[in-house]
């Protein structure tokens, strides 16, 4: 689908990753985000304890890890939604620790939420428009002079319409966001983040609950984003997707980064398989496998029944 257009940047990204070690925290040639010793504890639980991690500019990087590994919490620290107990990180060379969330977003690092945050009583279109940056009409005084922001508003609307079409939300354009289905909210969340026009977009499970056919077309879109020079960092449990679009994968477990590497390598890493992937690591289960598992389960069940009897 987007095969030819993706080549250039993808190739560049792959090239950048080519010679790297598979070590956790390995230095990247051109990192956009550099994280050092970030720790977040909740009571006795250390949710995040990342020693060092870098994200390569212009790449699509996946962040995977078991449930409760601390991925979302990690995102929260980086984007200023929660204050880290320790650590520091730079984005484009700028220190971001302690910077409030909105300034982080303005500096070009935008995140989405795993548990979606639709702005219920705004229409889908308004949700989208809200994402745009540097709006003249968002200033109190200029807001009073419609002429000063009309033209910009039209441009924004145009951009939003394009995105909505891509995300199959155009039919819902004028509906309240609160009336969207679970999957549609995910889509809106992601589309809205893209309206910001970020340098680095951090997606927290963007495709969970999204229809597979749509997922597929959206992946194409994400690849296009890379072509436009955007960096993508995303959390996802859908290995097909990770395999398909990521240039590099970072694995977290129990708050720490335990492995890094290209998708293929990572997915055959025994530690990762053990902690995360389980049996279902390299391909979706085939029908045969299923039968097998079924049989197993059945046997188990029977033996249980026997035991009880």
């Amino acid at each position, binding site marked *: 689908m987007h095969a030819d257009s993706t080549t250039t940047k993808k190739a560049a990204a792959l090239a950048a990753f080519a010679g790297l070690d598979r070590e956790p925290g390995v230095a990247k040639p051109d990192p956009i985000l550099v994280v050092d010793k970030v720790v977040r504890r909740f009571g006795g639980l250390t949710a995040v304890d990342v020693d060092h991690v870098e994200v390569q500019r212009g790449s699509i990087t996946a962040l995977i890890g078991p449930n409760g590994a601390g991925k979302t919490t990690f995102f929260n620290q980086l*984007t*200023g*939604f929660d204050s880290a107990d320790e650590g520091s990180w730079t984005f484009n060379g700028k220190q971001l620790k302690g910077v*409030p*969330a*909105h*300034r982080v*977003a*303005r500096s070009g690092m*935008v*995140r*989405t*939420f795993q548990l979606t*945050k*639709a*702005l*219920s*009583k*705004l229409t889908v279109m*308004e*949700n989208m*428009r*809200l*994402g745009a*940056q540097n*709006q*003249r*009409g*968002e*200033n*109190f005084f200029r*807001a*009073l002079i*419609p002429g000063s*922001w009309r033209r910009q*508003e039209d441009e924004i609307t145009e951009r939003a319409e394009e995105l909505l079409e891509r995300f199959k939300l155009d039919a819902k354009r004028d509906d*309240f966001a*609160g*009336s969207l289905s679970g999957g549609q909210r995910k889509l809106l969340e992601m589309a*809205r*983040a893209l*309206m*910001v026009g970020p340098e680095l977009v951090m997606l927290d499970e963007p495709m969970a609950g999204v229809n597979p056919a749509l997922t597929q077309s959206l992946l194409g879109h994400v690849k296009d984003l890379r072509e436009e020079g955007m960096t993508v960092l995303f959390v996802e449990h859908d290995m097909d997707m990770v395999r398909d679009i990521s240039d590099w994968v970072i694995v977290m477990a129990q708050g720490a980064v335990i492995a890094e590497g290209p998708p293929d390598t990572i997915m055959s890493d025994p530690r990762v398989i053990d902690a995360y992937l389980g049996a279902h690591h390299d391909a979706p289960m085939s029908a045969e496998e299923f039968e097998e598992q079924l049989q197993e389960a059945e046997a188990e069940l029977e033996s249980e029944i026997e035991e009880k009897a």
Partner: protein
Amino acid sequence: MDWNTIFVTTVKASIGLETVVYALAAIGVNIQFGYAGLLNFGQAAFLGVAAYGMAVTVATFHLPFWLGILIGLAATVVLAFLLGIPTLRLRADYLAIVTIAAAEIVRLVFRSVKFSSVFGGSDGRQNFSGDFFAMNPYSPGTYGIGPISFNERVTWVLTVGWVLIAIACGLVYLLMKSPWGRVLKAIREDEDAVRSLGKNVFSYKMQALVLGGVVGCLGGFLFALGQASVQPDLFSTEFTFYAYTIVILGGAARVFSPVVGAALFWVLLVFVGNTLSEAVSAGMLPSLFTVNNIGAVRFMLVGLGLMLLLIFRPQGIFGDKREIALDAR
């Protein structure tokens, strides 16, 4: 029954001073609560500090009227900042209790004997409206259509009041159609989402709080000037409750809802009250109802009326039913 009186007083109430004051206060509440979702339960205090700021400047310190207005405005803005800086980070319900508390503090201080040399205790302040009425362009006489007319003083106050309401409504209309208003409405829905899109939520909330306060404070000025007197208990918590009731009656986050809501509220109050008392004096009610308790019956009926209005039109007069559906738990 004197239907003529009932009709005339009701019509007059719908455009009278109280309607103007409550409408301005409610427009402020609508900005803060209807659009930005800030549960400011201290609106009465904004009107109070403005009215007192002006009254005290003129009556206690004998300074010029316009300086009084400036000081009243400044007091409102300062109050907004004092309340806002620490509390706008709080969850909505907590903001409500903090503002309600702050408003009571303001009222109790105005009322106290301790500071009565400045604020005049429970009698409040008088003798500050001369300059305002000196500007009255209407010559003595009555103005209006037939029986629905006001004397020149009231006409002057109402003229200023309705002009201010028109300006405030225009302002709200322009603002809420603009991207600025969009950010506000978004904050009402989910602050974190707005933050993640690079908007300075705190700053917008503060702008809304100040703007709502300033619009409300105009009501405070008019209240004081219209009555030629300020008293602390005018600015009690009930006032804020009623302002909220008015906003919801009209329909939250609609430009004209506070105005229509205010008129409706006072029409209800006056119509019910006067009809009842006419009925009593005409001997049309059972002897259980007397002059002593008819006032209570009036408020009973008004309470009932408010309930029924909202039960059968939960979205208010101008509200959108679809929005209400989203709120249902």
